[in-house]
């Protein structure tokens, strides 16, 4: 996981902080936090991201736009949400979901799954 850049899109600062901690602990060099959809879209436009960890709901705004943008850029991502799968929009049906509250290892594992075969932490 070293050298990877991860964008964490999470409106709740405390949760974002927790994700950051987990990712840093997993050895990810650069973790950037985005609290709103606007911030997130800006970050995506400006930076290069290996992964994205996204909340499904950003202060009442859905994930649809972000997901579309991610797909467009072919950035693999994981959804961290309190929502169950059935409450998520159909567009993200194939995206791995890590349910809140999460355990660190669970999130890391989900990310590792996104790596191309053979690559690992």
């Amino acid at each position, binding site marked *: 996981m070293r050298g990877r850049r991860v964008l964490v899109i999470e409106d*709740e*600062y405390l*949760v*974002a902080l927790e994700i950051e901690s987990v990712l840093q602990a997993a050895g990810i060099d650069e973790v950037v936090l985005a609290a*709103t959809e606007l911030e997130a879209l800006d970050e995506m436009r400006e930076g290069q991201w290996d992964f994205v960890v996204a909340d499904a709901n950003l202060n009442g705004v859905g994930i649809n736009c972000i997901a579309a943008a991610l797909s467009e850029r072919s950035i693999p991502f994981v959804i961290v949400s309190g*929502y169950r799968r059935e409450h998520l929009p159909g567009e993200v049906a194939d995206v791995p979901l890590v349910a*809140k509250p999460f355990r660190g290892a669970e999130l890391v594992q989900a990310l590792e799954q996104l790596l191309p075969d053979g690559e690992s932490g």
Partner: protein
Amino acid sequence: MSAESQEEKVSHPREQPTVVGIGTSAGGLAALKTFFHNVPADSGLAFVVVVHLSPDHKSHLADLLQPHVAIPVQQITESTPLKPNHVYIIPPNANLNAIDTHLRLSKLEEKRRERAPIDHFFRTLASTFDGSSIGVILTGTGSDGTLGIEDIKAKGGLVLVQDPNEAEYDGMPQSAIASGLVDRVLTIQEIVETILRYDHTEPRVLTPADGDEAGQAERQLLQKIFALLRARTDRDFSRYKSSTILRRIARRMQLSYIEDIEQYVGKLREQPEEAHALADDFLITVTSFFRDPDVFEKLREEVIPRLFEKRGEGDVVRAWSVGCASGEEAYSIAILMLEEAARHESSPTLQIFASDLHRQSLEKARDGFYAGDIEADVTAERLQRFFQKENGGYRVRKEIRDLVVFAPHNLLADPPFSRLDLVTCRNLLIYLQRDVQREVIELFHYALLPEGELVLGSAETVDASDLFRTEDKQLCFYQKRNVPGPEPRLPVFPLTRHRATPKPFNGAGDHTGERIAYGLIHRRLTERFAPPSVLVGPDNRILHLSENAGRYLVHPGGEVTASVFKLVREELRIELQSALQSVRDKRVFFDSKPIPVRFNGHARPVVMHVRPSLDLEQEGFALVIFEERDPDVPESTSEPGTGNPVDESIRIQQLESDLRVAGESLRTVVEEYETTQEEMKASNEEMQSTNEELRSTMEELETSKEELQSINEELQTVNQENRHKVEELAQLSSDLQNLLTATGIATLFLDRSLRILRFTPKLGELFNIRVTDRGRPISDLTHRLGYDELCDDAGSVLAHLATIEREVEDERGCWFLTRVLPYRSMEDRIEGVVITFTDITKSKHAEAALNESQERLVSALEAGRMATLDSDPETQVTTFSRGAVDLLGADLNAGYRGIEGVTDLIHPDDREAHRVALQRSIDTGEDFETEFRVIRPRDGQTIWIAERGRATKDPRTGALGIKGLIWDITERRHSENRLLMLIGELNHRVKNTLATVQSIATQTLRHTPVPAEFVTRFQGRLHALANAHDLITESKWEGAEIGDIVRQQLSLGNSSERISTGGPAARLDAQTSLSLALVLHELGTNARKYGSLSVPDGRLDVSWTAEPEQNGIHLRIDWVERGGPPPKAGAKAGFGTNMIQRSLTGVGGKVELQFEPAGLSCHIVLPLLQAQIANGLEKTAS
């Protein structure tokens, strides 16, 4: 009893004593005592007594009677010789077989008790006893004996009955008298006297054995008696057998105590009643129901079924009971025929004619009432079916009486009934002479249809085997051979009343007239006189000539004549005239003087002897004998005696002169006479032609009579049918009447001009109508109906023949269904109008109530946004209640067919689910419940409908049907969806909160090295979060008031005097509220620990304002600390500070911290939606 008669009795000892049979019942002992008290010891009679007594009791009657009776009284229990001057008492249960020289009884045994022991006794007496018998009926109840006396009477016995006035009980006497067969009704005293006198009267009448001709004297007397009876009663018995007739006459004589027949003829002449009584006696026949059971058994088994073969409805079976007497035989045949008819589905019409001469008998027969116990002859079953029990007897039911036509009919004179299938003529032929019998048989042959059946009595046979085939010799059944009968059929017999006047002579071939041939008479007379002779009839016509009589007759010119006066030689004419005259008048013989007659120019003396017939029957006939004498022999009788010749010559001259004078006068007289004769002849010819005319008229009448008779018969049949129809109509009419009354439908019949024809009583309740209103126009009537169009409707129905129905209300509020129909006659013509008024008030009310309740139901359904649907599997009709219009968009008038009417309205995606639900309901038989969507046509909105109901399947066609209720569940569906969303949201928030808590725990732990402090820190932060949750939960997670959040997090109350808060009311959303609460908690914690609140004089001021910015309203919160130690700026930013600065970025907030020496101040800007600002800017200050 006179000594003379005693002598007579002694001098004429009889083989048999006369038997006196006495029948009595209640009151009998006293009557018998009286009776025998009057009987002398030497009456010469044998008395046999039968009394109704209980058969089980030993009778002491003999012992009781004996002291009162001069002759021995004997109770008999076994065969006993019959002796005169004895009284025999027969116990009721004794088995009396016969009475001849003995009373023959078989041994007493437990035999069924004879219903009518007296009848049985009398019948036995009549049928088996040879001698003279007398039947006596004394006091008693019931009718026993009545049938028995008939038999005694028929055998020529005497029947006496106690006067009902005297009798203690008059039942038996009355019943016997009613039969009309009783000879005398007398007191007991008189009965005994009558019996004795009767018995001692011995008419001197030589009764020949049957078949033998009566003697000459008897025949003459009989002729007289017949002539008398003909005159008195119009009946002719001259062809009856003389033996029978004489026996009856002897009986009548005996009853009148007359022994000389001449004397009796005198009585007959003087007393017309006696003539009637005698005639009635001649006609007595014995009859009873099913007399000779064998004969009737054969009729029932063979003959009658044969008659019914090949006869169906519309055919007729005709029978004729000849000599029916009181009708028992005719009724018996009717019963058999009815029984046979009952065995056939369609039976022919039955006609039974019964005829007799005896008018009283016919009356009795027509009446059909039979006193006396006929139970012995008729089975109980037949009694039950064909008779009606009436006072003391049985009456033939009307059904049978109607079948039998009783008619007075003289077999020997009247034309017969014709086209008959069956003729019964039993025991009548025996009374007729043999040649008459033959004629009667020919008559029956004529009357019967081919193969018709003739039944005769047991002693009678058909001689004419060419006409009838013997079917049963024993029972005397004969069947008609279909051969032509002997010629002229009708009238077979001359009218008997004209028989006294001999018919004009019309040639030798006339056999229909006189039965006694002239030849016979002639021969008899010429036995004594050999010379040529001529038989002259009462009208002076020559009837018969002997061989040489022509010598004395000359046929004159002119018309051919048979008159003896015209034919006889002129010389003899005058002499013959006076001779015939005197012979007939004086009934003397006449011999003329020799009269010279010129034969071929030679005069020869001819003496005429004229002899009258002395036979009464041949009165007026005379024989004229011509005796030709030798002309040379001088008449010895005219030879004058010797005397003086001179005297003689003078005398001769004188005599010649006298003679001349006499001759002259005679010629004059003769001439006058001849003139008169001519005149007579002329008038005679006139008479004759008149007579001819009369005769032809008669013949015509005879023909007409026949025609009338057949027309009459036809009419009778038609009448019968009509009567039947009338009965049927009456029945039908009564049925209709009852129907009309029963239905209670007021009905009014109007004719073509709308006048009232008929109406039912019920109509009176609606119309002011009375029976007298018939014929009035309907428009005249007032009625209580609100139906002014009645007349117009009736007219319209008459014009267009279309039924009109209306529902009208009357004044009382009753409703009537009024139907106006055309009245169609049987010929399908319109004869008027029928108006019916049916009371439908109840159904009308029920209908209204039903409508109301229906309306209530529908309204309730509509109010509940519900509707019913009903798809009938059988009729395939689908109906909805009104609510379905709104719920399903159904069109109530569309006429949906079948279950598709329902399913087509369902959203296409839900139809399959609906179908499955229905199928399950059919499979399990349980109700189904399903929900489906419907796109409402009204607004295109998709709404949800629930349906509960039951599906059915037509077993025949397999078509489906539904009965169900539907209602709108769109609202429920929406709230359910919202709830689901809510639960998802809740889950999400809980999870988010848990994630937050997780983060607080790990971050706090990371930044707090000392465990004790970690607990304090973590608990503080968790409390802040929990308290913020309390606030937003109060508002159902819609957010919290800014003031509440501030006050809560600063825990005002402890050091409130040092903290001021204020700002307008503004509501923050839940997420923002939680984040802000945590930020304020960190700020407050820092203020208490390091800031202005850590010193006693430090102050904190929290205020907020709403400021409109370009992208919406922003809430600005200012946190200002003053009076505390200066903040340590530049110090490493800890977890708390990071939280303060970063927590609100997720909700678009901005935080600015300023570490000024006067104290820390923090400025927070939060975007705010317009609606989240409360009205006005409320300041809350502590």
